């Protein structure tokens, strides 16, 4: 007993010593910067910022943390998912892009809707159908102060299109290759000019280039991919500070920022001093964090909470038309879904309006077909499959599915109509709702929740029956979307990379190919109209709904708009 | 009685409420012990001997409690003391030695420390300094402990100081217990069957260790034992208890030589004694009565060879046959009546 008491005392003493050792609290310093920030005008502000940062550095080496900075300096955004990487070339994930695009700029960028604007590019011009000449903005600096030049651009794109160009952790090709498939090669003309050569005409080049960000050649060559992902450097409005991908990404304002796309106000360095992305997967927790004032902006507000939040004082909810159409893909190669009548019947059997009303509180629209109604090339003549259970039953009966043994479950030559509907956690509720409605029809559906990365290979191998999820068309163009979902699968190519229904129709394939290279808008529209019509009729999926992107923020957040592509652009956002 | 007795019990009664009614484990016991005297409290197990001791220490565990009576120790009534004051008496002025040394020593602590604890508790070796600055006091305490261990005959005490109880032999353990009791040089030691758990040779050693203590320091001792033999060779006076009552009391020789109460008689018949080889040993028939359901009259009557119907009728008073010679038997009551002796206290008849 005495021993332990002694030990305790010693411990206490040691602790005391340690604590005493790291003295030097810093609050007043920080307070200062606050005052200054409030009063001083922009020019001076920079100076002050420098002071502030210096202070921070001093603090760090003293192993004393600054007391939490007042909210007005730090903007905190709650993400619904964790980014998978900070390498613009090594992911295929929207959240990741959301984070990355605040540290990296692309040749072009997109506003909160579908407009594309020049960013790092000063001008882009088609020399001919297949050659795009890009003139770069001069004097753009990477976060390490080096200027961005044609070399970086060339490097960036070659890194994406070359096989196994990414060496860490094990050599592999960029998953983003598919987003710029037609690109054959890139060449430097002079320090500020590059030419991109495509395999054929590529009308959507602008929309697609938005999804590629420029990385620094010199830095990557120096530290390699490993070093790069640990401390990425770009030309974006914020520079990397620290990150634990599944927890938080801390960024600091890049003071030498060239200002961003000139025709997107405001131009100039970012407004906030610090920006932090926090990963909060549980929707309710995200909301709670916002209510508690722990975060300023939250992604993916669950529909059933939008009401509540709107009524909450101090909270602003904004929505944008979504770009993530949701559907249940049906394995067209396996009975019973190999019968088009069955697939159509299921489309008739689901009451989309009810789902929109009850599940999404009206914040969604039924899908008119394979494309989102907001897509630039949606087929205006298509109307969503109406809810008509009787017709559905009739069609099923026609296909041989009736409840002959009266057990409430449809059956065909002895086999009950039952299958498992796979889905992923975020839309479990939707999947179960659909399953419920099918059950009412007499189909025995159970729902299984998977992790996307696990179920994806199974789906591509056609091992599953049905899969409920979404596929983004953030480019508002069929490209990047249509060929992924409805083109027959071509191993190792972007075609059919997301084709989970095993759907294959030569005509559609042909149309997709045509559409990609057709420049004339009218013709293009015609092409896609036909393609959509076919897919609509053959119904390889139950076309469900397109929910709005709902984001919420505290009132203090100014000049913030949720973007349709669900990217959060913090460049313009201010806090007061 | 010239000087004031060290300890005096006046019809001490201790009761234990149980489901089957109130058990009067000790029933109006009157005792007195002169300083330096050794009293033997004898009786079969379960007759309430130990309870008497625990009552004196006021260590009866709830819900048992002392119902009535006085415990006069050096003139003051222990029952009147506050718990705090009583604590200062325990160990300091009255110490206790228990029956089973192994279970009585705390297995988790070193023997030496356990002896030392008594010293600390009563600040025998005075170290006013707070821990951990009381080095001096602790050193002196330790010296004292080792001295004590020598005194009770624990060989190589320095080594044994650090030993744990289970590393001691039974005898050593008992010696350690005695050392604990002696630590504060109490005026009175209550020994509860100190030798029962030990084998005969050790018994002897322990007994004369205690004898020496008694002689050297004049410590009063109450020795509880079921073994008349032990009592005989060790005590000055003997009180025989039966079913919570004292049935006979007197000096050793008188009680052993001319036992008055049939129960005492019976006890004596159970032990082999010199000069009586030819007599067969005769155990007392029957066994100790259930204290919860005692007969109204003499509780020994059911087993008593001389019992008469009247014995069962009503409570039997204690008869003071001679100075400091008492017995609780109807025969003596009759005798006293014939002699026309007078009632002393409510329960006592005597001839002054």
């Amino acid at each position, binding site marked *: 007993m005495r021993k332990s008491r002694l030990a305790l005392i010693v411990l206490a003493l040691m602790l005391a010593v340690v604590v005493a050792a790291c003295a030097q609290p810093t609050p007043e310093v920080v307070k200062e910067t606050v005052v200054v920030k409030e009063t001083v005008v922009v020019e001076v502000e920079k100076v002050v910022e420098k002071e502030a940062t210096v202070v921070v550095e001093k603090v760090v080496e003293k192993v004393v943390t600054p007391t939490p900075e007042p909210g007005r300096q730090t903007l905190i955004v709650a993400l619904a998912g964790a980014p998978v990487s900070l390498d613009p070339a090594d992911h295929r994930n929207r959240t990741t892009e959301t984070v990355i695009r605040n540290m990296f700029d692309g040749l072009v960028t997109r506003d909160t809707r579908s407009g594309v604007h020049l960013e790092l590019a000063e001008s882009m011009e088609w020399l001919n159908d297949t050659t795009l000449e890009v003139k770069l903005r001069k004097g753009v600096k990477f976060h390490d102060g080096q200027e961005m030049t044609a070399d970086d651009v060339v490097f960036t794109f070659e890194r994406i299109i070359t096989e196994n160009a990414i060496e860490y952790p094990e050599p592999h090709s960029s998953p983003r290759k598919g987003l710029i498939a037609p690109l054959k090669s890139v060449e430097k003309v002079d320090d500020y000019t590059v030419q991109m050569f495509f395999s054929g005409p590529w009308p959507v080049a602008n929309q697609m280039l938005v999804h590629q960000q420029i990385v620094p050649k010199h830095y990557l060559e120096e530290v390699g991919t490993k070093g790069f992902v640990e401390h990425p450097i770009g030309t974006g409005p914020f520079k990397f500070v620290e990150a634990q991908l599944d927890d938080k990404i801390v960024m600091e304002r890049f003071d030498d920022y060239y200002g961003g796309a000139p025709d997107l106000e405001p131009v100039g360095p970012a407004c906030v001093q610090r920006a932090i992305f926090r990963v909060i997967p549980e929707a309710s927790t995200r909301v709670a964090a916002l209510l508690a004032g722990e975060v300023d902006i939250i992604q993916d507000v669950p529909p059933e909470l939008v009401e*509540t939040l709107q009524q909450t004082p101090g909270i602003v909810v904004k929505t944008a038309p979504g770009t993530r159409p949701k559907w249940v893909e049906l394995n067209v190669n396996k009975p019973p879904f190999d019968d088009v009548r069955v697939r159509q019947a299921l489309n008739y059997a689901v009451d989309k309006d009810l*789902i929109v009303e009850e599940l999404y509180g009206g914040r969604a629209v039924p899908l008119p077909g394979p494309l989102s109604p907001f897509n630039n090339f949606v087929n205006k003549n298509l109307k969503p499959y109406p809810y008509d259970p009787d017709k559905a039953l009739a069609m099923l009966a026609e296909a041989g599915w009736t409840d002959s043994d009266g057990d409430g479950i449809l059956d065909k030559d002895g086999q009950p109509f039952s299958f498992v509907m796979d889905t992923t956690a975020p839309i479990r509720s939707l999947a179960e709702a659909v399953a*419920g409605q099918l059950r009412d029809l007499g189909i025995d559906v*159970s729902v299984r929740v998977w992790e996307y990365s696990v179920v994806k290979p199974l789906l591509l191998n056609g091992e599953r029956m049905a899969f409920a999820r979404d596929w983004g068309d953030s480019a508002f163009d069929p490209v990047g979307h249509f060929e992924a979902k409805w083109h027959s699968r071509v191993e190792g190519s972007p075609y059919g990379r997301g084709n989970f229904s095993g759907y294959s129709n030569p005509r559609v394939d042909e149309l997709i190919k045509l559409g990609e290279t057709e420049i004339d808008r009218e013709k293009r529209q015609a092409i896609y109209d036909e393609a959509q019509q076919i897919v609509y009729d053959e119904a390889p999926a139950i076309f469900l709904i397109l929910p709005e992107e709902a984001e919420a923020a505290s009132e203090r957040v100014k000049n913030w708009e949720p973007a349709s592509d669900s990217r959060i652009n913090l460049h313009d956002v201010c806090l007061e | 009685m010239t000087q004031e007795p060290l300890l005096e019990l006046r019809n001490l009664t201790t009761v234990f409420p149980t489901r089957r009614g109130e058990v009067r484990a000790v029933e109006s016991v009157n005792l007195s012990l002169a300083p330096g005297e050794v009293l033997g409290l004898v009786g079969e197990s379960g007759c309430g001997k130990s309870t008497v001791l625990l009552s004196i220490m006021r260590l009866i565990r709830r819900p048992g409690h002392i119902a009535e009576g006085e415990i006069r120790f050096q003139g003051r009534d222990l029952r009147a003391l506050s718990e705090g004051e009583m604590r200062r008496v325990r160990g300091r002025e009255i110490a206790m030695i228990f029956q089973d040394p192994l279970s009585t020593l705390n297995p988790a602590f070193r023997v030496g420390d356990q002896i030392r604890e008594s010293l600390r508790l009563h600040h025998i070796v005075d170290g006013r300094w707070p821990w951990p600055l009381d080095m001096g006091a602790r050193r002196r305490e330790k010296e004292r402990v080792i001295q004590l261990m020598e005194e009770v005959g624990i060989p190589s005490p320095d080594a044994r100081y650090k030993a744990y109880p289970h590393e001691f032999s039974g005898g050593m353990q008992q010696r350690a217990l005695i050392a604990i009791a002696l630590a504060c040089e109490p005026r009175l030691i209550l020994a509860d069957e100190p030798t029962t758990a030990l084998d005969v040779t050790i018994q002897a050693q322990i007994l004369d260790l205690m004898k020496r203590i008694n002689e050297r320091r004049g410590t009063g001792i109450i020795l509880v034992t079921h073994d008349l033999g032990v009592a005989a060779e060790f005590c000055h006076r003997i009180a025989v208890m039966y079913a919570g009552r004292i049935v006979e009391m007197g000096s050793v020789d008188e009680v052993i030589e001319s036992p008055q109460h049939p129960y005492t008689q019976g006890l004596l018949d159970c032990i082999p004694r010199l000069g009586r080889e030819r007599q067969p040993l005769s155990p007392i028939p029957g066994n100790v009565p259930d204290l919860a359901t005692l007969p109204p009259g003499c509780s020994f009557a059911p087993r008593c060879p001389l019992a008469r119907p009247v014995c069962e009728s009503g409570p039997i008073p204690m008869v003071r046959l001679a100075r400091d010679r008492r017995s609780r038997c109807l025969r003596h009551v009759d005798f006293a009546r014939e002699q026309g002796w007078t009632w002393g206290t409510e329960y006592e008849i005597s001839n002054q």
Partner: protein
Amino acid sequence: MTTTPAPTSSWARARHLWGLRWRMMRRNWSEFAHQMRKHPLAIIAAVVILLYILAAIFAPAITVHDPTRGSLRTRFEPPFWMEGGSTEFLLGTDDQGRDILTRIIYGARVSLLVGVIAVGVSVLVGLTLGALAGFYRGRFDTIVSRAADLLLAFPFLIFAIGVMAFLGPGFGNLILALTFKGWVEFFRLVRGEMMAEKTKEYVEAARVSGMGKVAIITREILPNIMQAVFVLATLRMGYMIIMEASLSFLGLGIQPPTPAWGSMVASGRDYLLTAWWVSTFPGLAIVGLVLAINLFGEGLRDVLDPRLKIE
């Protein structure tokens, strides 16, 4: 028992022993019933358990709703005592508009079934291995004991989660995952008891009477161990049920739409801010059942296992 004069033929002896034990067991039973009366809580608990069982069996008769179907129109109905609530859905509805009470009642089926089967299998395996290991000792004993020690190196839930992760969700796998480690406790208990009982006289008696080893184990020793096993089984039952719930909560157990308490609680998590009842009541059901089982188990132990072999 050994005091009774040994009949001549070995089989007569065996029959004789049987008779004795049979009488003993009958006595034990009446005694047991008597003893049990001293534990009113345990009795109440037993009644509660019975109620759960009945509810599970007669679920369709008790409730008018379908556990797997609901209408989105009746989404998030609050419990009847809150405003907006109706007596149609006593405990409200979940995100699919399904009646929570109904789902709880049907959920009892899963929990009870898993509990009983998982424990049952555990007992079976543990008992057999334990009996053999304890009686024959030797290499077999060493091997099985080592295996048991190894399993004990994993915390139960982590082990179960691991197994589920590999096997994928589903009822059978659930049972497997739970029993995979569940048998160890029983193995150790039985083995220990076996080695203790083995030395007792009545076993000797049986042996001299020429009984086969198997007979001795099954007819002589086991009956004397069963009480302890039974107590342990009851006490483990509650634990197993919690484990099943935990796995389902993590989405590794029973899959939707089959109602399981654990997954019901989990599905309610997303709606804590708007509909607290979705995850609260299923959890309450778990607590109720497990509490009852544990209380009953404690009572059993006090009565059947006074030596407190089980802690």
